[in-house]
């Protein structure tokens, strides 16, 4: 279970913070709200993101915006808003979302950013625990750890050390 905050930027550019908690089973609770199942219906390499939050459809365009985090243009319930996710919240959210609905299936671990694979710490058939580091990815001279959002078994390792990867590239497949 981990806590994250979303910064909601309204039309007048005022920012509103939205607290949410990710549960290990993938449910998401907004502050003071009951947790609901959440599921990524579609995420394309071009930034398109469609999420089912309970039974509500949320559409977003994810735009990488450097140091201030990832900017999302969100439309839900007929309104479109810009939404900024601080830190790596979007990756955590997406991976948790995927994991929730991939239990008993396969889970694709994708690169959140373009970068260079520094190290691959697991191999096919390894059992991994949730939060275990799988890959170290170098981007913008920083080493970023790619972690398993869910316990499982490694099905495929799609990259090798030294390999350059694009954002959204498949890194690892996990059987959950």
């Amino acid at each position: 279970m981990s806590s994250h905050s979303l910064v909601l930027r309204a039309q007048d550019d005022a920012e509103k913070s939205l607290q949410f908690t990710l549960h290990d089973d993938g449910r998401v609770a907004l502050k003071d709200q009951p947790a609901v199942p959440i599921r990524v219906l579609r995420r394309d390499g071009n930034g398109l993101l469609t999420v089912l939050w309970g039974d509500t459809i949320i559409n977003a365009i994810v735009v990488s915006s450097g140091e201030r985090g990832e900017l999302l243009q969100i439309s839900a319930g007929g309104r479109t808003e810009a939404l900024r996710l601080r830190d790596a919240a979007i990756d955590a959210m997406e991976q948790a979302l995927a994991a929730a609905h991939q239990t008993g299936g396969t889970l694709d671990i994708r690169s959140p950013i373009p970068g260079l694979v520094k190290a691959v710490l697991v191999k096919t058939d390894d059992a991994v625990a949730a939060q275990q580091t799988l890959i170290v990815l170098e981007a913008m001279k920083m080493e970023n750890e790619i972690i398993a959002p869910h316990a499982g078994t490694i099905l495929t390792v799609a990259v090798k050390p030294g390999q350059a990867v694009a954002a959204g590239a498949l890194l690892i497949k996990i059987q959950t």
Partner: protein
Amino acid sequence: MIQKLFIANRGEIALRIARTARRLGLTVSSAFSSADCGLPHLRLCHRAMELVGDPARVYLDSGKIIDAARKLGADAIHPGYGFLAENEDFAAAVQDAGMAFIGPTPEQIVALGDKVQARKAALAAGVPIVPGESKAISDAAAAKTIADRIGYPVLIKAAGGGGGRGMRVVDSAAQLPDALLRAQTEAGAAFNDPRVFIEKYVARARHVEIQVLGDGFGNAVSLGERECSVQRRHQKLIEESPSPALTRETAAKMGALAASLAASVKYRGAGTMEFIVPFGTQDFFFIEMNTRLQVEHPVTELCTGLDLVEEQIRIAGSSEPQPLPFSKPGSKVLDIHAIEARVIAEDTDADFRPSCGKLDLVMLPSGPGIRVDAWAEAGLSVTPYYDSLLAKVLATGQTREQAIGRLALALDETLISPVRTTAPYLAALLMQDEFRSGAYDTGTVARLKQSKANNEKEAGLDPGTAVIAAAEKMSRNGHSGMLPRGPAPRRLSSWQQS
């Protein structure tokens, strides 16, 4: 008043319905199969849920659909076309669940969807029907009596459905018993209804249909015709309006009779009366009614400026007669030619076999006079579970020539890969003299294919069939990433001649 609409469908029609519903300010919901979670109509929905189960069957599961609509708080269900759209039990169950069914009443679906009963209703309303017998036949002796009376060739048709299944052309009495048995078996398997009937077979015919709209209280209007003779094995490929075969007087007469038939049964909502027109004549005979929105309804929307889904919602949501469009004398109808081509995931080079897989490239056309209704997007997959219609590409023009030219270019601009589609084939078909002249019939596509085969056998391609050959070569090459620049199709297109 309908406020919360549930869409019981998928693909392009779900998207098309969602667009109107959103514009009308409704809350829109839908339920999707496990194969369909990426479809674009979901982006227009406020709420959604998965239909758990076999993706090939869940959209036909009336109980699951109604349950989903209830959970998502809907007060009305739009069935689209196909799936449960013409299922009277579903329509009744929707009403029993306290929601509005956007379509005719269950009784009307039964009365008009059944071909034998529809013939009787047409006869009563004074609409000409194909010579034949308006009752189901069971034994060969009865069939022979009827066939002898109306004269060979005759057509055996299924009472309970269409699409060419349960249909047999019979040239002589000797063929009759065997053909009857096979038609009954086929109809039973396809529609769970082995009833067949016999009518006169019109060897060379055009297929023209009238869009009607009824208020459910005995008022109905015709919204003009659609010419649907470009068919391959009873599947429509290209539709246009006005029909190049009919005089305006004939079209008006056909429309008035169709409207009076709809009015006579107090038809509610949008429906289509299908007619056959013997080639080269102004005669017409009613064959059947489709009690739903049709795939090709945008042709009528472009010719009238109407939104048929909006009309359907308005009529279904009211307990009082709603004013119908064009019902006042002197109402202005647009003077426009509209034409539609169906871009289907089929390999035209391999006998139109369905082509499945991930769509890596999808580039859809636009421009003056172009409308595209499509669900296809790069990144999505064409799965084997459903109808393989990817996109409907439509063009309008002030003249038929202009509309055809625009559509041909739009089909050229339609780049889809690696899944193969009918787009290049249809672009070439539009350039055929037989189509350009307007003097085509329901056998045209098959004859062009046959003449191509004969020509290839003689190893000499004539210029006309070379176009088809070039188009098939293009589709074979996968159409990937570049506009095809084969010389033959370009040479004939009107937009370059003008």
